[in-house]
């Protein structure tokens, strides 16, 4: 099942490559230049140990961390694991004991060589409990307390980077770039009320083991609003920008190059407190039936999202199509009519807090309230909790966004259950896809969390950016990108605009 899934993912990627590459004109790569990137996240962390699973900022942090750090292995666009810092790996029959041989001659950005103890320290920090990581003569040995046949998927994704912690707390990596400069957000000198966004400047690592990247610098600006990014992309102030799903259509109409990943973010509704208890089963069922996922995906999100009935996306689990989420307003009303007057949401509105930032998620929250009101359930949308808020007021519902982080469906679902449902480790048997499906079915049937829509990641890419080989699961692979000079790019723009709304897919670059 695992290999089938990866082959499916690879097929998507290759098709995209064929589409993108087939239309592109062949031109020799060029070294040099600064790649400008703008992100919506106002802050990111380059320390994988700080990352909270599923958080909204995790995707951006992971993208930038992949510039600085390497993993032991990677997954190519063909669905095969490729050596990275590890050149060979073996495991026993139980898949509990794994041996990885480290690549020789790899050096950190400060010139010091990568040694097994440093790899062990990094892996032990990111793998966490349940794993014992030890150094061998030429690499690392990982022992898991339970069978972990998906260890390669885990190590090829998420936060499992190899790094070395400096005495001052900063981390160094062996990746194609290193952090040259980091400027925190500050008040503008011209307009004190405006905030100058934070910037991180990455410099090409000439001594990296996989070859110097094409661009000299990658300059990342954080905290840029979606509309501003789109505007900057149009006027050439940035080379790469995130595009909000509801702006994708507009961006396409403007003739911009838009790349999208496989669904990366799950938008879901979570019940809190007494509403999550078994006594509120009927209420949760009424909500489940009242949600109009199609309208959310097709109207509010302009057909740039998918209605979600499962917790894991199809590309990750392979069985998501088996889940259905039929809207049945009449049944929802019947359930609601049977509630006694004291049930929350009947007279007093249920407070729904939108945990994800941005107008899009606020709109989603309002739609949830509208759908609920159609079933005579009262819901009031509260604004997202600001970072300065000390103690957020208790709410009955959360509209949350979960970013898929791992290539292992088991690890992803387990992280989801732990983080979102305060659950424990999934049973060992769930390593089996059928058991995993059963477990997810059980979770869905509990209705403690209602999946609503799946959002892909949309990226606007300037025509002067060549060899854009982002993976379907969201790895941008900026080391492969090279920049064409602006005058040359302008002629390419004209050509590109002829393609108009063609979609770029990643080309499946390999180290």
């Amino acid at each position: 099942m695992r290999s089938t899934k990866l082959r499916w993912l690879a097929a998507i990627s290759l098709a995209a490559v064929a589409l993108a590459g087939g239309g592109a004109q062949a031109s020799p790569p060029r070294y040099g230049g600064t790649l400008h990137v703008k992100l919506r996240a106002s802050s990111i962390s380059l320390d994988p140990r700080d990352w909270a699973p599923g958080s909204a900022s995790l995707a951006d942090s992971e993208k930038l961390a992949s510039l600085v750090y390497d993993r032991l292995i990677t997954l190519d666009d063909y669905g095969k694991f490729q050596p990275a810092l590890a050149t060979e790996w073996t495991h026993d029959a139980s898949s509990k004991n794994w041996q990885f041989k480290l690549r020789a001659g790899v050096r950190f950005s400060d010139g010091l060589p990568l040694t097994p103890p440093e790899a062990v320290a990094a892996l032990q920090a990111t793998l966490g409990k349940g794993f014992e990581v030890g150094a061998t003569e030429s690499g690392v040995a990982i022992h898991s307390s339970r069978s972990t046949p998906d260890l390669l998927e885990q190590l090829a994704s998420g936060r499992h980077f190899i790094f070395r912690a400096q005495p001052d707390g900063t981390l160094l990596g062996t990746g194609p770039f290193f952090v040259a400069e980091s400027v925190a957000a500050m008040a503008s000198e011209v307009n004190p009320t405006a905030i100058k966004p934070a910037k991180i400047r990455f410099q090409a690592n000439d001594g990296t083991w996989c070859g110097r990247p094409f661009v000299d610098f990658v300059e990342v600006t954080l905290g840029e609003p979606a509309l501003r990014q789109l505007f900057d992309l149009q006027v050439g102030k940035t080379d790469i920008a995130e595009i909000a799903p509801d702006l994708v259509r507009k961006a396409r109409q403007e003739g911009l190059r838009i790349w999208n990943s496989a669904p990366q973010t799950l938008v879901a509704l979570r019940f809190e407190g007494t509403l999550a208890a078994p006594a509120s089963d009927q209420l949760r069922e009424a909500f489940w039936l009242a949600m109009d996922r199609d309208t959310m995906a097709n109207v509010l999100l302009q057909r740039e999202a998918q209605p979600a009935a499962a917790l894991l996306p199809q590309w990750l689990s392979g069985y998501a199509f088996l889940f259905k989420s039929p809207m049945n307003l009449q049944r929802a009303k019947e359930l609601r009519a049977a509630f006694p007057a004291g049930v929350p949401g009947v007279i007093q509105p249920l407070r729904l807090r939108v945990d994800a930032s941005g107008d899009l998620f606020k709109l989603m929250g309002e739609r949830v309230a509208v759908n609920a009101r159609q079933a005579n359930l009262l819901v009031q949308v509260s604004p997202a909790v600001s970072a300065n808020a000390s103690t957020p007021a208790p709410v009955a519902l959360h509209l949350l966004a979960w970013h898929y982080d791992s290539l292992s469906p088991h690890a992803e679902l387990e992280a989801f259950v732990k983080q979102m449902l305060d659950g424990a480790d999934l049973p060992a048997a769930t390593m089996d896809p059928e058991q995993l499906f059963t477990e997810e079915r059980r979770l869905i049937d509990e209705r403690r969390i209602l999946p609503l829509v799946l959002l892909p990641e949309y990226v606007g890419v300037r025509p002067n950016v060549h060899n854009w080989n982002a993976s379907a699961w969201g790895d941008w692979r900026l080391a492969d990108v090279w920049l064409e000079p602006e005058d040359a790019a302008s002629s390419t723009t004209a050509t590109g605009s002829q393609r108009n709304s063609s979609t770029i897919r990643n080309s499946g670059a390999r180290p």
Partner: protein
Amino acid sequence: MTFRTKLFLIFLVTVLASVSLVAYGVTHYTQKAFERMDAQRTQALEVQFKKEFAQRGETIVQQVENITNADVTVRMVLDLARPNADASLYLHDANGAAQSHGLDFVEFVNSDGTLVSSAQYPARVGYKNDWVTSNKNWDATGAFLKREELPDVAALSLTAVRTQTVGDKTLYIIGGRRLDQNFLASLELPEGMRALLYRNLEPTFVDTALTDANGAVPQAESFRTLIEQVQKQPQDLVETISWSRDPASAETFHAMPLKGRNGELLGVLLLGSSAKELVLLQREILKIAAVVALAALFIGLLVSWWVSRRITRPVEELANGARDVASGRWDTKIDVKGSDEIAQLATAFNEMTGTLAAQKEKLVQTERVAAWRELARRLAHELRNPLFPLQITVENLQRARQLGPQQFQEVFGEATATLKAELANLNNIVGRFSDFSKMPAPEFSKVNVNEALRDAVRLFEPQFTAVGKPHIATEYFLNDSLPEIDADPELLHKAFQNLVLNAMDAMPAGGTLSLRSTDGGDTVRIEVSDTGKGLTPEECSRLFTPYYTTKQLGTGLGLAIVQSVVSDHHGTISVSSEEGHGATFRIELPKRHTGATIKPKAEAATLEKESERAATASD
């Protein structure tokens, strides 16, 4: 209270009442005038609001028509008219139209009533708006008030609907402006007035639904009663709200119901007029009135004093003249000024005193003649008794000259003895008259009244109990706690002695003599009663007249002496009697005499004994 004071107060009260009345009248009519002015202002503002409301409605209609006729809208209608049209393409179009046309609310509704795009509530896209499709004549309908559902709250809007039709497909364009604090801020209000808007979007009063040009209204709860009244009966109402104890803080609010297209109450416009200006003016008027009143009061005070003095001066002179007349100055005259009633009264008074003086002189003359006649009669009576024996004796002596010497000698001896006796009698009579004319001035010392009474009775006790004479019993009702009084013991003894003697004479057949002493505060009261035949009223009135007596052998000086003594002691004497039931003499003597020289008691006692001896000798 004197007549002048009364007059003064009457004038003063009259002035005060007049000033108060004028102040009240001015305040009252000023308040009425202000209230009328305030009502006119409110009415003008109401008209202005309605005019403004209509203008805003026309503007909104124009803006919605602009959206309706825009190319992008026409394209949208054409696109949506196609089969399987993708309405999601227009999700944000309403927002764009709202921004470009300056409207708060814009919605596009498909011909089947489905919401295609909403600027204010995009999450509602896809839902039906049947109220839009139910009206087929939107293009002839002006702006109207509407309850606008928003994601978090409901709002009040002034809304217009227009349509764009292609074939049999119609697109409804709904546009509106929010009625909120900005709307209120755009109203031009006179000084001291403000406008508030209550958005009646909840079934009960909600204080946060009330706003003014600055936003939320503090103390919005104070409007609850007024709003609830309008909610019950949507009609214009007026109520005054006091924000503090200071009346100047009060505001009068004119509440106007704002109704929706179907007559439902969607809002209440409150036009508030501050009472501050009115109250300050009232205070100013009251202040001026107070100053004027004080000034008038002061002037009135002076005028009243002058007038009352002018009026009462002749009356006072009359009163003084009357007092002088009362004190014996019967010849008192008053200056007569003018010819008014008071002057006539003064003239009459002068005539009266003149007549009185003449009458008095005549009376004195008459009394003097009567007194002399009485004295002559008494003297003739007194002297006639001894003269007759003298005449007989002298005639006996003349006849005795014819007798022998021995017989003559015997007759002569008897005659001379008789002559001596009668001459002594004559001398005694003359002495008594002489004594009465020479009543000495009292010499005051401490005297025990009870003792004095007992001493006076003690002199006559042998006669009360003498054999062969009628028996007279004595009863004492004396207050032993009486203090000693300032009196002349000799004169007092003489007075009591005469009273006892008088009582004894009044009881020739015997009876009871009662003596009583009581404390009268500043005085001592003494009563001497007998059980004799009593006195007639005429006798009572003349009893103390000198030389008046009811007895055959009395000189009529006894009770006159008593009255003289009592008068010299600044006391009073009276008699009460009922014929056949005896008589009672009451004397009231002051306890103390200011300015009198008081002799020690021992000396007084000596004097008393001497007087007793003298009295005994005289009797």
